[in-house]
Structure formats: structure tokens, C-alpha cells
């Protein structure tokens, strides 16, 4: 938004801008000319000139370049329309109020107000409960997927958003969870409920194990190592055929049981949906509590400045490992649910693309923001499902969204709202203590 505001103050479009636009367009035309501008016709050995293409390149480049200049035009037109309106209505000059300069966004206001927050939460919860009653099974299945990704996103949010450790191999823990259930079920006949905590714990332990060697790494290096770890897990799953059955995967995994009662297939989907809702609610609850705790603050401090953080007495190792293993724990739980929902696990489900997807959810939604991650997961999982006709453009769309986000809202759709402490109550308590 900064960039746009800057343009507002400047003149809309200057001669210099026009010259630059023309120059860049010209360059693009020259550069693309050999590829787009001519073609050898293999039949007649003649060169076919396709000057029209080059012209389109020039026009397209010029239009794209002038887009940023159009924004102030829109703004001035808006101002003009408002002025015209006031003149027509005969509003006295002193009653024309200029737009308020700065206000907290609607969402951050709702989040910080406990009553409004409670109402919104209740409404959202009610909607999620009613949802499967009004839609068909296909929609419920998609929603289960989205809820699964919300859980994964919230788990990664602990690692990336709060502790600031860029983890590109998050899917590894998801895979550990899924395969834990699949293998325990295959060999020892564990059911869903027995495997659930074990899957989570197992993934958490893997997080801890991965955490140790990379404690010293930061930023890009950390990202590369975690990326490698994610791939290692997948490759092991693919090649350790005796244990994991390789690329053929493990099939016939039973879904979650309901107190030993037999459920019809449609009931099972419904059951899984509500189960997922419960899991997500628990996750939100836990992540929210962690965020406002001593540990949550330590994560934030670690993200902000590692050296200052240590100098203030925070154990870097413990704090980082806690973030890694907690994030992994949630991925493990999600993995068990994934295995139970799909009734089968294949190594291919845990490719790097999956990690990138979860990371995109966190980045798009807003690093560290719970509401943001939920929104991010809903957008990135539901939108492709509903735009199936455009599926071949999916990745293009995806990339465009992320690029636009980085330019216009690098903090994500919903930026983190830091908790405001009630100063008056602290003061009151302090007086009490003194009296």
C-alpha cells in the first residue's frame, strides 16, 4: 500500500513516465521479435512475418506499465465524484468530512474486543455445525480437506509464523503421522484412536530429532536443510519397500471408529467432518494459549533478534526445539486423520509441493495470525476445488496471488494483532498490593 500512497502525492503521469513506458515497450518488442515476430514456413522455406504479435507485445507491456499510474486517476475521479455529489446536494462546506486517516482494520478490532470476538466465534462455529446438513457429501469431503489444512497451517504457523524458523519440509511430519497409523494398523491392528496420540508423538519426536542438528542454522540455510529432510522422508518411504510397500502405498486403512458402532459410509463422512471440527477447535485453542504465554513471547523474541533474546536469558535450544516438536506434533495428528480419511497412504502424497502449499497458506493468511491461517487455508484449498474448470491455470493463478501478496500486503491477508494488556487493571492490582 505504501507504493500506492506515494503515487497519490505525485503527479499522475509525467512526460518522463511516458518516455520510460515507450522505451521499455520498444525494448520488449525488439527482444521478443526473433521468437514472436517471425517464423520459417517449413513447406515453402519462406519467412512469415508476424508483426501483429510484436505489436500486441508492445501494447501489453505499455498497458501493464501504466497500471500503477491509473490508480491515482481512480482516486482523483472518486474525489471528483464526491465533490460533485456534495455540490448537487448543496452540502455546506463545514459538513464535508475528510476521510479518516487511520483506523485499525475491522478484523483486528473484532479480535481485540472480547465480546465481539465471542459472538463471531459462536456464529462461525454454528455455521460449521450446520454446514454438512445443507450441502452434499462431495462438499463435506472438500471441507474436511480444508479443515485438515487449517490444522497443518496452524501447526506450521507455530514454527514459521511465531518462532520465525522457515521450515520447507513440514510435510515430512505429516507423512510420519500418516505412516505411523498405516503401519501400526497393518502390523498390529491399532485403531484410529489408539494411533492418533502415537502418530502425533512420533511426529513430535521426529521434529525434535530434526531440530537438534539445525539449531545453529538460520534463514536460508535452515530452509534448505528442512527441505532436504522433507525429501529424505519421502524417498525413504518410496524405497524401503519391505516396511512401507514403496510407491504402491498401504491400502485398506480403516476410518475412525465411533464407540465400536457400525456406521454407514455417509455417516462416516459426517462423523469425520465433526471430528475434524473438534480437532481444529482444539488446535486453535492450544495455539491461542501458547501465543499469549511465556513460551509464545520467547518464540516471538527469537524471531525478532536471536542475540538479544539469548542475552535476556532465553534458552535458544529449548525454545526452538519446543517450536519444532509442537509444530510437528500437529502435523502428525493431521497425518493420522489424513490416512483415516483417504483409507490409504502413498509416498506421492507427501511431495515438496505439499510443503509449499502449507507454507503458502501461512504466508498468504498472515504469519503468526490464527485467523489469517484459517482464511488462507480456506482460500487455497476451496478455491481450486470450485474452479476446477480452470484447473490448468491453477498454478499460474497461485503464483500470481503470491506475487501480488508480496507486493501489496507482505504481512499477509490478516496481520498479527499483538495482545494489548489492560493497563487499568494492572494499576488497580498494583494499588491493592501496596495498600
Amino acid at each position, binding site marked *: 500500500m505504501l507504493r500506492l500512497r506515494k503515487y497519490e502525492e505525485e503527479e499522475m503521469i509525467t512526460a518522463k513516465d511516458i518516455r520510460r513506458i515507450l522505451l521499455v515497450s520498444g525494448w520488449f518488442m525488439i527482444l521478443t521479435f526473433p521468437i514472436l515476430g517471425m517464423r520459417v514456413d517449413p513447406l515453402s522455406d519462406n519467412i512469415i512475418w508476424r508483426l501483429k504479435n510484436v505489436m500486441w507485445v508492445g501494447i501489453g507491456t505499455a498497458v501493464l506499465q501504466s497500471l500503477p499510474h491509473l490508480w491515482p486517476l481512480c482516486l482523483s475521479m472518486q474525489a471528483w465524484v464526491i465533490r460533485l455529489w456534495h455540490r448537487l446536494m448543496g452540502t455546506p462546506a463545514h459538513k464535508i468530512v475528510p476521510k479518516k486517516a487511520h483506523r485499525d482494520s475491522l478484523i483486528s478490532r473484532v479480535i481485540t474486543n472480547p465480546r465481539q470476538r465471542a459472538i463471531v466465534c459462536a456464529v462461525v462455529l454454528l455455521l460449521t455445525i450446520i454446514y454438512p446438513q445443507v450441502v452434499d457429501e462431495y462438499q463435506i469431503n472438500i471441507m474436511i480437506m480444508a479443515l485438515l489444512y487449517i490444522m497443518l497451517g496452524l501447526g506450521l504457523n507455530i514454527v514459521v509464523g511465531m518462532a520465525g524458523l522457515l521450515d520447507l519440509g513440514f510435510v515430512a511430519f505429516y507423512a510420519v503421522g500418516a505412516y505411523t497409523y498405516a503401519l501400526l494398523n497393518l502390523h498390529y491392528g491399532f485403531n484410529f484412536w489408539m494411533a492418533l496420540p502415537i502418530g502425533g508423538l512420533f511426529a513430535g519426536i521426529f521434529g525434535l530429532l530434526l531440530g537438534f542438528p539445525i539449531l545453529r542454522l538460520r534463514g536460508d540455510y535452515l530452509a534448505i536443510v528442512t527441505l532436504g529432510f522433507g525429501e529424505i522422508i519421502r524417498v525413504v518411504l518410496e524405497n524401503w519397500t519391505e516396511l512401507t510397500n514403496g510407491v504402491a502405498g498401504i491400502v485398506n486403512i480403516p476410518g475412525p471408529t465411533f464407540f465400536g458402532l457400525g456406521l454407514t459410509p455417509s455417516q462416516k463422512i459426517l462423523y469425520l467432518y465433526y471430528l475434524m471440527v473438534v480437532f481444529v477447535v482444539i488446535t486453535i485453542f492450544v495455539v491461542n494459549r501458547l501465543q499469549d504465554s511465556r513460551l509464545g513471547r520467547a518464540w516471538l523474541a527469537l524471531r525478532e533478534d536471536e542475540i538479544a533474546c539469548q*542475552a535476556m536469558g532465553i534458552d535458544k535450544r529449548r525454545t526452538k526445539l519446543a517450536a519444532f516438536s509442537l509444530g510437528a506434533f500437529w502435523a502428525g495428528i493431521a497425518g493420522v486423520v489424513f490416512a483415516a480419511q483417504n483409507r490409504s497412504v502413498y509416498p506421492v502424497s507427501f511431495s515438496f509441493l505439499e510443503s509449499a502449499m502449507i507454507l503458502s497458506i501461512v504466508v498468504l493468511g498472515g504469519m503468526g495470525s490464527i485467523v489469517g491461517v484459517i482464511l488462507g487455508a480456506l482460500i487455497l484449498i476451496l478455491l481450486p476445488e470450485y474452479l476446477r474448470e480452470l484447473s490448468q491455470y491453477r498454478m499460474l493463478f497461485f503464483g500470481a496471488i503470491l506475487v501480488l501478496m508480496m507486493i501489496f500486503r507482505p504481512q499477509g491477508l490478516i496481520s498479527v494483532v499483538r495482545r*494489548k*494488556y489492560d493497563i487499568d487493571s494492572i494499576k488497580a*492490582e498494583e494499588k491493592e498490593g501496596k495498600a
Partner: protein
Amino acid sequence: MSEPILQVQNLTMDFGGIRALNKLDLTVHSGEIAALIGPNGAGKTTFFNCVTGIYKPTAGDIFLTPGKGEKTISIKGLKPNIVTGKGLSRTFQNIRLFPKMTVLENVMIGRHCRTKTFILGAIFRTPRARREERGILLHSYRLLEKVGLAESANDFAENLSYGAQRRLEIARALATEPHLLLLDEPAAGMNPQETEDLNALIREIATDGLAVLLIEHDMKLVMSLSQRIFVVDYGSKIAEGTPEEIRSNPAVIKAYLGE
């Protein structure tokens, strides 16, 4: 004279072929305000980094006596967070606050090493965890009042003025309940009024029985505050004494003004 709180003996720090600290001896006594001065590049900040565990010194010993009657312990080579836990805290020359956290939260971070709640306590919010959290909040707020930042408790640290950020750093360091506070150029970039306030603040801190060792270039502040001054140049201590002694010391004058 009161008992020593920090004893540094023979401290040497090499960076490759460069000797940043050369057999430095230094003792700070409890309850006193001491200053470490010297020309730029003399090794003052390196000294701080060695003492607080950010660097591992090449040779020498560092002993800390945390409080009256406590056992003296060697803190050489300990990790920074352990050193802080033992009762030695610091501020940084180039302010290192947590910019995207609120002022109050910055101070609350300082309470980290004096509290215990971890994962389970945070999730289940046990009565103990809740009491602890309330204690952190009250303690931190009191410190903010002390440094005069209570009004901006809920602002982001990055939005504070320069002088206020320096004071916040002091509050954060105090939150760790140190016995010895190391201040690295606390008055850098402050205007005369802010420096005056800082002077009063450091005096107030020291009356609580805390020892303060500060690096500072503002000679007026150093001379008015400190009871003892150490002068280092090229990593070696060239003088030690009261402000009057330092002022007339020929070696110091030579180091600062040249021959």
C-alpha cells in the same frame, strides 16, 4: 570497600591475528557505578561480549558473585542465557529491542529466566502458570513506571523515540533481576535533557544495591556518575581510578589526544 561482584583476570580475546583484549584485569564491586572508557576500537564492547558469553574468550577468567554472601562462580565460556540467569544483564550499543513486540512484552521477555511455565502450563493455564503470568505482568509494568514508559506500554517498541528505546532496553535488562548491569553506551544519540534523565535513572537503579558498569563516550555523564573508571586502549587497561585521578592521568590524555 564492599565485596567484589565481577572479577575479570587476565582476559584475552583474539580474532585471528588481532588481539582485541590483552590481559585485561578488572574488578567491579557491589553497589558501585563504574565506567569503562577508551577510544573507538579499544575493545570495550568486546569486553562486554566476553563477559556476557556472546564471545568465548581466548584466555583468562571471569568470576561473578551473585549477591551478598553468595558463592563466587566462574562464568567464563557459559552461554549468554546462563550468564543472564546468574544475575548479569546488559544492554546493547546498537539498540536490540524486539521491534514488533509491544513495550510491555519487551520487558516481559526479561522475566523469562525467572519464570518456569512451559508447554503444558501454557496450554492448560494451571493456577501456578496463571499466578506466574500475573507476576510477570506486574513486575514488568512496575519497571516501565520506573523508566517512565508506562504510558506507552501497549505501543510497538519500534515506534518509540530513540531515547525511550534506550530506556526500554534498560527496563528489559532490569527485568532479569541482575546483580550487575552492563550498559553499552546508554547515552549515545541522546539530547542533553535525555542524558540528564538517564543520569538520574542510573543513580536510582544503583541505589537498589545493583552494580552498574557502563561504556560511555559522554565524559560529562561518566565523570558525574561513576565512582571508578577503567580506561582501555588497544585491548589493554591503561588506567584505573576515581574520576579526578583519570582526568589528570597522563596516559589517558595521551590515548585520547595523542602526543
